[in-house]
C-alpha cells in the first residue's frame, strides 16, 4: 500500500504541474452548465415545472456538470505518456506491487475529483442552486462524483494499457458522449421519448445522475441514492479487477 500512496502523491504533484489541464477540467463543465441553463431555463420555469422541486433549471443541470468534470481526468493520458516515454518500464523494474502503478493514479484521481466537485458545488451556490439534502447530501454528491471519476479514469487506463498509444487513448475517451448524454440529462427519464428512455434505462450512468439529482433537488431519498452507489460499486469493481489483471499481464 505504501507504494500506492507514494505514487498517488506523485500523480497529484503531476496534476498540479499541469494547471492548464485543471483549469479546462473546471471551465468546460461550468461553461455547459451556464449555456444549457441559459438556453432551457425559460422552457422550464421553476414555479410551474414539477420536476425542478422549486429550484431553477441550473440545479437540474448540475449533475451532468459534475459528471463531465469528473470524466476529464488526465490519469490515463499521463499514464500513456509514461508508457510511450519509457518511464513506465522504469517503474516496472522496481520491486513494487504491479497494482500500485495503476492504483496510485486512481487514488490521486479520487482526491482531485473531491476537490473539483466541491469547488463546482460551491461555485454554484451563489447562483441560487441549493443542496436540498444539506451537508450530508453535499458530502454524498462529492463522493459520488469522485467515485465516478475513479471508474472513468480506470476505464481510460485500460485503454492506455491495452493500446499503449496516446492517440488511441484519446479516441477511447470519446465514449463519454454516449455515456453522459444517453441519460435524462435535460429532462427526467419519464419525459424522454420512448427510444431515449429505453437507452437511458440501460445506461448505468442514468442511475448515478438520478442519485446526484435527487440529492440536489430533494431531501435524502435512498431509493434514488442507493442505485447510484450500486452502479459505482459494480463498475468500480469491474474496472479495478480489469486494471489489476491488465497490469499483471503487461509484457
Amino acid at each position, binding site marked *: 500500500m505504501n507504494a500506492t500512496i507514494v*505514487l498517488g502523491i506523485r500523480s497529484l504533484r503531476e496534476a498540479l*504541474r499541469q494547471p492548464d489541464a485543471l483549469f479546462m477540467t473546471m471551465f468546460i463543465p461550468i461553461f455547459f452548465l451556464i449555456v444549457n441553463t441559459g438556453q432551457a431555463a425559460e422552457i422550464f420555469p421553476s414555479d410551474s415545472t414539477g420536476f425542478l422541486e422549486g429550484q431553477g433549471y441550473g440545479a437540474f443541470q448540475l449533475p451532468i456538470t459534475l459528471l463531465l468534470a469528473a470524466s476529464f481526468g488526465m490519469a490515463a493520458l499521463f499514464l500513456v505518456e*509514461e508508457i510511450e516515454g*519509457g518511464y513506465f*518500464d*522504469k517503474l516496472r*523494474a*522496481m*520491486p*513494487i506491487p504491479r497494482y500500485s502503478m495503476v492504483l496510485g493514479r486512481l487514488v490521486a484521481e479520487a482526491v482531485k475529483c473531491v476537490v473539483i466537485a466541491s469547488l463546482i458545488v460551491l461555485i454554484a451556490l451563489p447562483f441560487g442552486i441549493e443542496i436540498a439534502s444539506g451537508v450530508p447530501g453535499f458530502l454524498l454528491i462529492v463522493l459520488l462524483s469522485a467515485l465516478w471519476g475513479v471508474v472513468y479514469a480506470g476505464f481510460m487506463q485500460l485503454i492506455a494499457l491495452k493500446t499503449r498509444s496516446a492517440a488511441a487513448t484519446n479516441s477511447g475517451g470519446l465514449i463519454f458522449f454516449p455515456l453522459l448524454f444517453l441519460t435524462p440529462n435535460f429532462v427526467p427519464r419519464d419525459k424522454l421519448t420512448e427510444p431515449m428512455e429505453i437507452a437511458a434505462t440501460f445506461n448505468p450512468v442514468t442511475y448515478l445522475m438520478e442519485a446526484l439529482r435527487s440529492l440536489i433537488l430533494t431531501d435524502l431519498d435512498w431509493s434514488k441514492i442507493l442505485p447510484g452507489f450500486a452502479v459505482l460499486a459494480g463498475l468500480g469493481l469491474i474496472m479495478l479487477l480489469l486494471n489489476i489483471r491488465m497490469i499483471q499481464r503487461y509484457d
Partner: protein
Amino acid sequence: MTEQAVPAVRAAGLVKHYEGSDGDVEAVRGVDLEVQPGEIFGFLGPNGAGKSTTVRMLTTLLSITAGSAEVMGVDVAGEPDAVRRRIGVALQESGLDPRQTGRELLTLHGRLFGLDRAAAAARTQELLELVELEEAADRVTKGYSGGMQRRLDLAAALVHEPEVLFLDEPTTGLDPSSRLTVWDEVRRINGHGTTVFLTTQYLEEADQLCDRLAIIDDGLIVREGTPEDLKAELSGRRDGAAVSLDDVFLDATGRSRDRAAGEVQEVGA
C-alpha cells in the same frame, strides 16, 4: 572473480517469441551467457538483433518464452521482485518523468525501494553530487539536456545500490563530451564493485569499457570473449592482419562485408 562464484548474470537457452502481425516472430532464439561479478560486459549487435529483448527479459520486463535466466543466482521468472532489488536499469530511452524535478524523481525512487523519507533525501543528495546535477536538481527534468537526462537516469538506477547495473545503449544520441562523461560514470560505478551489463552499438565504447563482450545477431550469440581475444582470433584467420573490433563485428554479423572465412561460429547458442 573465481570460477566458484555465482555468476552475476546467467542465461541458458533464452528464447523470446512474439505474436506479430505476420505470425510468430522469433526475437531471441536461444541465448546462453554468463557474466561474472565485477565485470563490465558488453552486449553488441545490429539493430533488431535481439539485444534489447534479451535485456528486457533479464530485467524482468518481458516474459521468457523458453530457457532460464538468473541474476546473482536468483531466478528471473520465479522471483522477479528479488531480482528487481538486485538490479538497476537504465533503458534505451532515458525514461524520465518530465513533470518531476531531478530531486523529486530520485527521492521517489528511493521511497519505492523502501527507504524512509530521510534516507531517501540523503541518498538523493549523494547521487546528485555523484552525477554533478546539484545545480539542476530542483528543475523539472523536461528542461534537461540529453546528457543531463542520461546522467539522472543513471543516478536513478543506482538509488538502491544495485549489484548488477543494466545499461541499454546509454550513450545513443549523446554528443562526444556527454558520452565521455557517461563512460567515466560507468567506470566509477564498476570501480565500486557493481557488475555492469551494457548494450551498445558503438564498438569503440565496447572496446574502451568492456572486460568481455558478446555479439548477438538474428537472435543468437555469434561471438563471445574479451575484445583482445576476439580481435586476435580474427587476425589469426586473416594471416595476422591488423583488425579492429569493427572488423570483428562485421565478420560476425556479415552486415556490410563478406565474412572473411568460413561460417560464423555460434558460441553458446
